[in-house]
């Protein structure tokens, strides 16, 4: 009964879902997925989500993959009047647009994490780093146009981006003088959001592993 989230702590898309659930006061059960043991490829998991990814959500008969779809579902279903995901079509579209941007941001973070943590490949890290920096430059531009990621108010787009950017910061890759607006936005949300704590352990865990890995590669 209730909402089940299948995920891991380190993964930014998982943490984005936890942040949103906490933000709307939704009780959920966290189910840790042992990805190293291949749990996400088990027949039971594939039945829920053939794409074998985390996060995956189960709510009654509904099984859903893709963090952004889980986020917007939780909003539509459990907090339809919330300003975190506005109803007005144009305002909602601006949030959706940034949710898609965040998917690209996550992709570019994976482009760093994989060579550093798994492939131990310095060349690949160096090749992929500019893409992450480019996405951070874009985010800096967005934050020059409005207080928050998708407009003046905090929305689920901020929460998704927060899960990613906090990881980049914990990895030592968010240079303050290069990205002052992002740094200020990050500090503001980290201190002002009462539910931010659900993101901390995972961001630090993954961020510090990446930091260590970068140092070991001599990058």
């Amino acid at each position, binding site marked *: 009964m209730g909402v089940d989230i299948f995920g891991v702590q380190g993964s930014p898309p998982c943490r984005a879902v936890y942040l949103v659930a906490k933000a709307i006061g939704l009780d959920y059960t966290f189910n840790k997925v042992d990805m190293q043991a291949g749990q996400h490829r088990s027949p039971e998991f*594939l039945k829920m989500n*053939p*794409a074998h990814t985390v996060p995956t959500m189960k709510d009654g008969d*509904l099984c*859903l*993959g*893709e*963090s*952004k*779809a*889980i986020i*917007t*579902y939780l909003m*539509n*279903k459990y907090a339809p009047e919330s300003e975190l995901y506005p109803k007005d*079509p*144009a305002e*909602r*579209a*601006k949030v*959706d*647009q940034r*949710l*898609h*941007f965040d*998917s690209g941001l996550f*992709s570019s973070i994976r482009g760093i994490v994989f060579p550093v943590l798994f492939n131990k490949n310095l060349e690949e890290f160096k090749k992929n780093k500019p893409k992450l920096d480019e996405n951070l430059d*874009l985010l800096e*531009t*967005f934050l020059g146009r409005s207080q928050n990621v998708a407009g003046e108010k905090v929305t689920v787009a901020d929460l998704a981006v927060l899960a990613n950017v906090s990881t980049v910061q914990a990895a030592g890759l968010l240079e303050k003088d290069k990205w002052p607006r992002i740094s200020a936005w990050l500090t503001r949300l980290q201190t002002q959001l009462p539910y931010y704590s659900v993101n901390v352990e995972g961001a630090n865990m993954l961020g510090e592993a990446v930091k260590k890995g970068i140092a070991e590669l001599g990058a």
Partner: protein
Amino acid sequence: MGLTVFAFEASPPCRGVFITLKALGLEYELKQIDTKAGDTRTPEYLEKNPQHTVPLLEDGDLYLAESRAISTYLVNKYAPDSDLYPKDPEARALVDSRLFFDVGLNTALLHILKPLKYDGDIARSDAAIPALLDLINIFEAMLAKSEYAAGDHVTLADLAIVANVSTAEAMGLDLSGVPKVRAWLDKIKQLPCYEANVQGVTQLGVMYKEGSTALRAKAQ
């Protein structure tokens, strides 16, 4: 006034938007963009879309990038009762989930196409094919659960995914192992709105086949 779309036809996400506009019966002005010529990097374009991507929708004061955000906006704004993007949270969630799955399809496609278009690197391009086929296999598994991409009727998920899957077909990639995908593709091709995909996908298919054949011959 009215809708303007900045795009080029070969691009799958652009075609996803064209298909959706046609399905909704919405008129729009097309502004042709040549990314190789730097059209998305002019100060004017960057002001409208700092992400320097296509497609870009202009609707009055609103500038919207990200094809799938554009498609859902078009339904929410102009056809809020349409079955293409149901209002029921559970049904809508399934469409959204498939739309984000489609992002992965497009990324995998770009990993094949970009090395060809910009670097002439056939080895890197060919090496990226298995990853796309892997995702198409996952889509096959998804179609075991429902007749269409996100349920028992056509939704925005079908209109987005078909832009990418039809591209894989036009490129001549091996779809022999995915009968449900092939049957689904045939069904979607029958929809009147699919017409908006045809010119662009043909163009891209020819470009890929000619480009890749030439480069493989050179490599031998």
